[in-house]
C-alpha cells in the first residue's frame, strides 16, 4: 500500500501580537512547524504501512525551509519526502495549492491512499483535502477519526459529524482528512533521527511536475485577500464580586435581563 501524506508548514504560533500603532503583526520567533493536524496524518500513514506493508511519502508545497521540517517526518518512520518549491507557487489559495499538490502527486504516482490533516492552523480553511481529491478524480472523506478496515483497493472509516459519526466506505485510491482523535503521534526513535539526518528531501519545481504556471500561485488563485485587520475586542470585562451564591445570582440576573437565557 503506497500512502502519501500532505504536510503544510505553518507559523509556530497563532499567538500573533499586534502593534496597536501600525496595526501589524509582531512576531518574535518566526519559526515554522508542521501543521498540528498533519502530525496525526503522518502517524496514521506510518501505522497503516506497519500493518499492511508498503511505503509512506510526505509531500509539501512550501518555501525551501520546509525541507527541514519534512525530515522530521522521516524520523518517525516516513520513507520519502517531496518538497514542491518554486516562486511560481507563491501566493496560492486553496485551489492553486490543490492543483500543485495534485501535479506533484501524479509525478510520484502509484498511490493508494492520500492522507491530509483536517485543516491548517494558519488559514483554518480545511479545503485542500476535498479540493485535491477532486483534482485527482478520486473520492474523499473528511474528519476521519478511525480507520475500521483498509486493504487493497478498499477503505472503511469513521467520519466525525456535527452530532456523532458515520461509517463510510470507498474504493482506493482515495483522500481522507484526519482529526486529532485518530491516534497519538509517536516521538522519533534514535534510529529514525539518524536516518533523517542523512536523508535528502526530493525537491521539485513547477516545471519538474509539469504544472501549468497560469494555474499556480497568485495567478492561479481565484480568491484575493484585499484587506487584513485585527479584530477589535471591545470588551469592558466586568468582574463579579461576592460570595459564590451572590456571584451566581448576579450573573444569572444579568443573563436573564439580556434575554440570552429565556424563561420557559
Amino acid at each position: 500500500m503506497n500512502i502519501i501524506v500532505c504536510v503544510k508548514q505553518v507559523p509556530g504560533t497563532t499567538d500573533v501580537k499586534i502593534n496597536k500603532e501600525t496595526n501589524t503583526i509582531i512576531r518574535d520567533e518566526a519559526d515554522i512547524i508542521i501543521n498540528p493536524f498533519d502530525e496525526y496524518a503522518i502517524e496514521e500513514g506510518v501505522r497503516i504501512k506497519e500493518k499492511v506493508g508498503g511505503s509512506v511519502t510526505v509531500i509539501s508545497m512550501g518555501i525551501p525551509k520546509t525541507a527541514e521540517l519534512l525530515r522530521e517526518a522521516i524520523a518517525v518512520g516516513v520513507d520519502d519526502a517531496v518538497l514542491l518549491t518554486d516562486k511560481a507557487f507563491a501566493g496560492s489559495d486553496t485551489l492553486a495549492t490543490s492543483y500543485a499538490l495534485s501535479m506533484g502527486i501524479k509525478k510520484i504516482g502509484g498511490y493508494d491512499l492520500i492522507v491530509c490533516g483536517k485543516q491548517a492552523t494558519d488559514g483554518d480553511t480545511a479545503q485542500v483535502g476535498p479540493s485535491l481529491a477532486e483534482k485527482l478524480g478520486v473520492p474523499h472523506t473528511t474528519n476521519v477519526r478511525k480507520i475500521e478496515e483498509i486493504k487493497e483497493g478498499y477503505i472503511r472509516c469513521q467520519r466525525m459529524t456535527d452530532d456523532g459519526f458515520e461509517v463510510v466506505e470507498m474504493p482506493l485510491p482515495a483522500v481522507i482528512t484526519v482529526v486529532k482523535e485518530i491516534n497519538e503521534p509517536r516521538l522519533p526513535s534514535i534510529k529514525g533521527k539518524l536516518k533523517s539526518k542523512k536523508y535528502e528531501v526530493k525537491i521539485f519545481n513547477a516545471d519538474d511536475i509539469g504544472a501549468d504556471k497560469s494555474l499556480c500561485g497568485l495567478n492561479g488563485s481565484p480568491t484575493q485577500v484585499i484587506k487584513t485587520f485585527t479584530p477589535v475586542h471591545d470588551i469592558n470585562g466586568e468582574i463579579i464580586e461576592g460570595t459564590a451564591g451572590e456571584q451566581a445570582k448576579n450573573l444569572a440576573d444579568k443573563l436573564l435581563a439580556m434575554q440570552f437565557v429565556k424563561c420557559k
Partner: protein
Amino acid sequence: MTGIEIITDKCVGCKLCVKACMFSAIDMKDKKAVINDNCTLCGACVSSCKFDAIQMEKEKARKSVDISEYKGVWVFAEQKHGVVSQVAFELLGEGRKLADTLSVPLSAVLIGNNVPKQAKKLIAYGADNVYYVEHQSVENYNDESYTDIFVQLIEEYKPEIVLIGATTYGRSLAPRVASRLNTGLTADCTGLEIDPEERLLLQTRPAFGGNLMATIICPNHRPQMSTVRPKVMKPLEPDYSRTGEIIQPGVIIPENLKVKVLDVVQTVCETVSLSEADIIVSGGRGLGEAKNYALVEELARVLGGAAGASRAIVDAGWVDYSHQVGQTGKTVGPKVYFACGISGAVQHLAGMSSSDIIIAINKNPDAPIFKIATYGIIGDVREILPELIKQFKDKLN
C-alpha cells in the same frame, strides 16, 4: 509580471515590514528591506508599510468565464433526517440582504427525499424560489452525489453567489464543488457584504485562530462561493404568506456511487450539538477531577445548551474528543460561552473567541481567559457551578 517589489527610494529602513512578516521573508541589507525566498506573497508587509514602499502586482487575470452570465444568490439548504439545519435559515436572512442590494433573486437549493414542507419553509424564511431535487438515493448527505447534483445545478442556472453553512458536510461539499468548477471559495466567513461599485462579494473571515481578520474577493471567477460560520448571521422572522416557486430541476441522479455511507450514528442525542448551540458550557482542568464534569453537563442541560471541553481534559480522558473546543477541536461561536476552570490558552481561544458573551470562572485572577471575558467570576468552579445551576433552575421554572 507577478511579484513583490521594494521601492528602494521610498524605503526608510524602519523594519516594520520585517516584523509584519509571518514567514521571515524580509531581510535588511544596507538599511533597505529585501525580500528573500521565504516569501509566500501574502501581502502582510504591503499593508504594514507606512511609506508605500512595497508594491505587489498580479498579472491581469484572464476572466475564466463570462461573469455577466451569472445572476442571483443561492443558499444551500442542508437537511438532516428531513429537517433543514438552522444555519440555512441564517444564510437566507443574510442572502436576502445581499440579493436585495444586487436586485437579484434569492434561491435555496434543497436536496433530499420527500421534504416538500421544508421547501415551503425556505420560502417563508426569505427564498424567492427553491431548487428542489428529490430522490430516495439522496435522502442522506453523500459527498459524491451531492457534489454531482450541485455542480449540475450551478452549471445550468449560473448563480453569482453561493452560500453554504460551514458545517461538517458544508465544509466537505463546498471545496469539492468549487474545485470542479475551478472557482474561488472562502472558508468559514463571519461577515458578508456587497461592494456596490464592483458588485463583488466581500467575504470576511478569521485566520490564525481568530487573531487576524481577512477580507477576500473572487473577482474573475463565478460563482463566488463561501462557507459561512453557523450562529453568526440572523434569520428573518418566517412569513408563511410569502409565495415562491418550487422548481424541480431535471438533473441526472448519479448512480453506482463509489462513496457509500453505511451507517449514521448520532451520539449527541439529548443535548444540542456544539456547532448549533446558542449556549455552551465548557469545562477545563480546573474542575479538578473527571466526575465534576457532570456539573458542566448539568448547567448546559438546564440552559438548553451544549457541553464543551478544553483539550487538557479530553487528553486526560475525562470526556470525549467530540466535545473539544479549540484549534485542534471545534470552532464555535455561541451567544454565551461559559469557560469553567479553563486557563484560556491561545489554542483554546482560537475556537471560541468569537462568542458574543464570554463568562470566565477561574480561581486565578491572572488567568488569560479573563482578558477576553465579558463577565469574570474569580472563585472555585466547584462551588460556583452548583450555585449557578440552582439559580437558573429556580429562575427558569
